[in-house]
């Protein structure tokens, strides 16, 4: 049992954890943009981004030249093109930040900030590991020997907190769209508001079976109970399995990803709500979109996909806890599953065309909501009858 922390220690440890999570997210987002280029390229039988760090001249030349000469693709070929994100970042940061003359300056500036804050705030309530990940080294001043928890904040109503904060993210889009004072963004913003508000209903409903089965709203406890299946009937696999797909579908809609990317449908709306944005303000929207993807993947992983354990949908009970490594929770499992789901996000983008607006609403209201209600009913029956 670690000694109780004083206020200063609490704050410092909190800051350390926040910074750690932010660093991981800020590493993941550029990697994700790179992965998106690559995966979509490969799925369309192209090579994706290969030009940076691929040639026979320049920084990576010594690595590549011999390989090319031998008639082989260079080592680490998959990572050719990776430095593109550096160029992306430099471009976004240094680009001229234009605010349209007729725009509402304050709201125009506020919108991307809101969007990013909502997206990143959610990371504070996600538990990446049940319990303490490691202890700070004893020799460090002030924080020596203190626990580094798997979650920044272990909120009792973690799930609700996440949903609430995520729902604030829509303001970024809507306000940005309105403040631009331009047709296309406004249309995109309206679509987005309608879409996100509609899809929030099945999204929440699809999470309810998990809440019913777990009997708690604490993120960590929910995840552990749902993946180990302790105190749950084996039949609980059914609602979890259905819920997973409903949740993922709604997650696509909530993050404005293909096939539900109507707010930024470039064929009709130029770029939708961020048409008038440039520079780092656009970068914030971009960042928020990818951060939201990570959040949705984290949630789907934690509640449906087995969380910190190996097997998804509460099947972990097959593996007894005595088995080394596979029987225990691990941060690696969590990250691997999150990565897998992120891959699915990109994979779907490479596959499906965009829905029409009425189809989008049909899918939400006519199929997903009834389906999730039925799923909720099944979960309730399983909880009380078995």
């Amino acid at each position, binding site marked *: 049992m670690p000694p109780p922390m004083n206020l200063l220690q609490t704050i410092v440890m909190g800051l350390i954890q926040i910074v750690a999570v932010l660093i991981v997210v800020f590493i993941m987002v550029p990697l994700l943009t790179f992965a998106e280029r690559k*995966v979509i*390229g*490969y*799925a*369309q*039988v*192209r*090579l994706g981004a*290969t030009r940076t760090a*691929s*040639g*026979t001249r320049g920084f990576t030349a010594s690595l*590549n030249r011999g390989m*090319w000469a031998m*008639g*082989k*693709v260079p080592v680490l*070929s*998959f990572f050719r093109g990776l430095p593109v994100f550096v160029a992306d970042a430099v471009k976004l940061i240094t680009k001229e930040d234009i605010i349209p003359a007729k725009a509402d300056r304050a709201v125009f500036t506020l919108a991307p900030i809101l969007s990013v804050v909502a997206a990143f705030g959610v990371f504070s309530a996600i538990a990446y590991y049940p319990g303490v990940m490691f202890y700070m080294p004893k020799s460090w001043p002030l924080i020596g020997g203190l626990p580094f928890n798997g979650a920044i904040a272990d909120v009792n109503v973690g799930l609700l907190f996440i949903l609430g904060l995520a729902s604030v993210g829509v303001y970024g889009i809507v306000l940005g769209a309105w403040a631009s004072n331009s047709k296309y963004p406004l249309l995109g913003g309206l679509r987005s508001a309608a879409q996100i508000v509609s899809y929030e209903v099945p999204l929440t409903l699809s999470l309810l079976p998990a809440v019913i089965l777990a009997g708690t709203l604490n993120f960590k406890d929910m995840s552990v109970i749902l993946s180990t299946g302790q105190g749950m009937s084996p039949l609980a696999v059914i609602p979890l399995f259905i819920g997973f797909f409903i949740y993922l579908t709604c997650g696509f809609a909530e993050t404005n990803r293909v096939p539900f990317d109507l707010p930024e449908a470039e064929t009709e709306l130029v770029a939708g709500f961020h048409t008038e944005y440039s520079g780092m303000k656009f970068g914030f929207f971009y960042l928020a979109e990818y951060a939201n993807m990570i959040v949705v993947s984290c949630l789907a992983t934690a509640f449906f996909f087995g969380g910190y354990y190996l097997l998804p949908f509460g099947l972990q009970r097959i593996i007894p806890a005595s088995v080394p490594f596979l029987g225990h929770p691990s941060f690696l499992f969590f990250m691997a599953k999150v990565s897998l789901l992120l891959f699915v996000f990109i*994979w*779907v983008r*490479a*596959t*499906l065309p965009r829905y029409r607006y009425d189809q989008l609403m049909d899918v939400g209201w006519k*199929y997903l909501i009834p*389906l999730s209600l039925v799923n909720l009913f099944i979960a309730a029956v399983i909880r009380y009858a078995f």
Partner: protein
Amino acid sequence: MRLLKTLIPGDIAAGLALTGKYFGKVFFSANRKKVRAHLKHFTQEYPEIPVRLAPRFRGRLTLLKDEQGEIKCVCCLACEKICPTQVITIEKGKMEGRKMPYPVRYDFEMERCIFCEFCVESCGFDSIILNHQFELAAYNREDFSLGMEGLGQNMFAPSPVGKYSVAED
């Protein structure tokens, strides 16, 4: 039945399977295999790997020589006459020990050439071809005036000439 079809999105699964298949294919061949296998499936990595061109690719005009190293052209002027953009200018001449006429000058203004290959088709002696050189950009207009001599530009470069192109077998 319709309900079942709605609930189980088979089309989406089929689409995902297809893109997944291609993803796997490219993922496993793009990074491991040798360049030749690499070329067959997808985008060619052009500057690093020579581009595969079709045999009938029409590149730069080339004068051919026979086994003895003699220019095959006999100055029948068929190519000069048929050329739609009139980029070929031939000056007839005589050479000792050779019955057929000999081109003293064979000028080719590449800047106007449309690479239609009429000249090659009209040639009765198979003495000219369009080779596989496609990197023809130059900094000066004069560099496009090719002839039999001068400025390192000559019409005799054999095919393939391009540093980066490979003829299909």
